[in-house]
């Protein structure tokens, strides 16, 4: 099961387009806003206590990164859940009776 490579999320009432990239082994989300706001790159970093947090790359847009990161995480969790449901349903479905 693969996570989506491109999808749309809603941020403050605006639909932003998100693409997923793997750069230098790190997962980076590139967020393009529908208005003139510059695109934002975010990734997951780890603080000195071992706690993970969303951060903008480059630095300077931490607040936006945390907000967008949470929305993206929720979207991907929802996407994975739906994928699982589809799989379970498939497995439990009886074989269709072609002659009945």
């Amino acid at each position, binding site marked *: 099961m693969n996570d989506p490579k*491109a999808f749309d999320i809603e941020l403050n009432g605006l639909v932003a387009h998100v*693409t997923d*990239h793997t*750069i*230098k082994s*790190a997962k*980076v989300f*590139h967020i393009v806003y529908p208005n003139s706001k510059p*695109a934002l*790159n975010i*990734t997951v*970093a*780890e*603080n*000195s*206590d071992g706690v993970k*947090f969303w*951060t*903008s*790359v*480059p*630095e*300077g*847009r*931490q607040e936006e*990164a945390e907000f967008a990161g949470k929305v993206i995480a929720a979207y991907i969790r929802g996407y994975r859940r739906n994928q699982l449901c589809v799989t379970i349903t498939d497995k439990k479905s009886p074989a269709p009776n072609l002659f009945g």
Partner: protein
Amino acid sequence: MCYYNGQKVTRAEFIRLKGLEKAIRNYNFLNVGVHNGFNYAPCAILIPSEDGKDFEIVQAEWGYVPGFVKTRAEANIFRAKYTTLNFKSENLFLKEDGKKSMWSSAAKNRRCLVLSTGIVESRHVPKIGKKGQELKETIKYPYYVTVKNQEYFFMPGLYNEWLDPETSQFVNTVAIGITEANALMRQVHNTKLRMPTILTEDLAYEWLLEKPSEERLSVIARTQIPSRVLEFCTIDPDYRTAKEATPRDFPELAPIDTSYLDFAEELQFNHWPDDLEPVMAGAERPSGTVVESTVRTYYPPGMNPQGDLFN
């Protein structure tokens, strides 16, 4: 201890994030579906590494700006006046009048490759008047043209590192090589009868990383890909705004004449291997199409041929 975006992180994590920043600067533009040259938007180019043995992918604005241009405003005026999106491969070192070409220095020292998955060109068809006569006004039908069985291909480019005084940053700007159109592109780009130069992998390697003579560079830059190696379809005219090439049929549009599939196309600068051309396989080329053989490239240990680099 270091801080990143106000958070306390370890030195190792700080270094990793700073490394990521650098990498992202070169990559965050690659998800654009269609680049419109007249926006001078960034595109991906391959330039040789400092030691000349490898290459790196960097960002460049499509539309060459020479070093003597001083400001961004001047750069835009220059581009509008001279249209430096493309360079004419026939004038790589010399202009028609025999004088030195403006591309000469870049051709010697700043060659690059432009990565592409396909090109968009418009076919112009005259509108028909009330009395059934052809009008001067035309309808433009955009075509998306790709290389058969190749996810992406390389075009020869010339780049310049230009200092933008407003941001005090160096900006790469690039022009793409164009050559005489083949049978397919003469019908598609029927106003200019030109097409981008599309290189074989061996020629791309030679253009970027070797030191060919001026004569050889001119021959490479004029490479004409044969029509039968190309695939095409008409697309929705909204590609500039949608930034995607969406296939669309136009029932009123006369089909492209594909009789080039039935005979060996005569192109003066066809450097593509014969085995890609079923008609040519096992047959002799017609006289008059003398072509320099392409040189097999030596790949240093640990370095794959270019086609494998993105796997």
